């Protein structure tokens, strides 16, 4: 039988399978911890820091930290909520996010977090960094203005031999996501769609299908990210793909 551990989240007693990550353990106990770079069924990367919680008074990422017996976890505190807002605001000012012109708007997880947190304007100055758009592939295009470098595409979109189809190119400020030259050539329609869905933002888009869903019917138009329904919607989609 699986070993169970008990711990507390914001003073509420919880139990979960030993070794499960804090985000999943919290969800099993009906508590939502906001995440962005995390993707169900794929090894966590801990790259965005949106899921930061305090475990026994220390900051840790809840998507990469397994629960253990007796942990005291803080999630919904003024300090941590402000920190999460700050991370989201940084992403908005570091890239160039023109939501009104973005095909992902309404279905975008970064935007959905900002809606849920009711962020009216970022506290940091907009950088207006120069980024370009790569539309050279026949099926998909990359808008680097919107990439948050979460590596979800690299981790989740693989060919039948398990090789990643996407890769990082360059270093530091110049890092850009790109398709592997060889594997990109044979990208199937199915994998192209999967890549678009895996990308939390509008950085990977399949050509010629933009703005298909009318306003009002998009994923986060009426229901905040992290509520029961959207969580189910997301995990349902994954089952579909596996």
């Amino acid at each position, binding site marked *: 039988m699986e070993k169970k551990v008990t711990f507390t989240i914001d003073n509420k007693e919880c139990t979960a399978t030993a070794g499960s990550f804090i985000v999943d353990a919290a969800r099993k106990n009906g508590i939502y911890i906001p995440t962005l770079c995390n993707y169900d069924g794929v090894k966590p990367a801990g790259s965005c820091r949106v899921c930061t919680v305090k475990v026994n008074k220390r900051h840790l990422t809840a998507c990469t930290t397994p629960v253990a017996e007796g942990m005291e976890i803080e999630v919904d505190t003024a300090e941590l909520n402000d920190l999460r807002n700050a991370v989201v605001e940084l992403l908005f000012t570091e890239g*160039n*996010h*023109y*939501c*009104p*012109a*973005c095909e992902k*708007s*309404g279905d975008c997880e970064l*935007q959905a977090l*900002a*809606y*849920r947190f*009711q962020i*009216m*304007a970022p506290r940091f*100055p*907009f950088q*207006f*960094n*120069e*980024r370009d758009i790569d539309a050279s592939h026949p099926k998909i295009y990359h808008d680097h203005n919107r990439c948050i470098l979460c590596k979800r595409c690299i981790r989740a979109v693989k060919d039948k031999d398990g090789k990643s189809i996407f890769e990082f190119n360059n270093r530091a400020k110049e890092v850009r996501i790109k398709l592997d030259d060889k594997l990109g050539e044979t990208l199937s329609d199915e994998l192209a769609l999967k890549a678009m869905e895996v990308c939390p933002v509008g950085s990977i888009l399949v050509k010629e299908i933009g703005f298909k869903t009318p*306003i009002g019917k998009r994923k986060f*138009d*009426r229901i*905040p990210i992290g509520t029961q329904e959207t969580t189910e919607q997301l995990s349902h989609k994954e089952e579909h793909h596996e």
Partner: protein
Amino acid sequence: MSKPVIATTSLAGCFGCHMSFLDIDDRLLDLIELVEFNKSPIDDIKTFTKDCDIGLIEGGCCNTENIHLLKEFRKRCKILVSFGECAIMGGLPAMRNDISVKECLEEAYLSGPSTVNEDKILPNDEELPMILDRVYPCHEIVKMDYHLPGCPPTADMIWIVLHALILDVDIELPYEVIKYD
């Protein structure tokens, strides 16, 4: 007691935010009961005739005239509100922000595919405001007190926020009214 006074303007915007303002529909009648308008395209008053309580700013700053007007609004209004994506982050006009002004002007007036400009003149009349090196969000020029995102902000959000500011009560926004698009 006299009614609170509202002023509005459009800087580097498209008037979409003002259209959304009109979209509060019959609540406009309630609004007229509650407030008085001063400088605004809505009543076509062109210059301030008194100090105002609330100023709504649509659009960011792309030229010297925008900056001048924004500073005047700051002086004249107690509460200043960035109203729409362009006021908050520059919006679509800010898409030129990673392109040099020289390149922008050349594309618009000299080399653009639909441009006919035989004398190769860039607009240079001294009456014309100078274009800025980039488009600036309003809060990078003066202090802004509130921000209403959206392109345009939803009529419901405009109404809820204005109503709360007028009555001086807490602003409570339901999830669906905050949209960035």
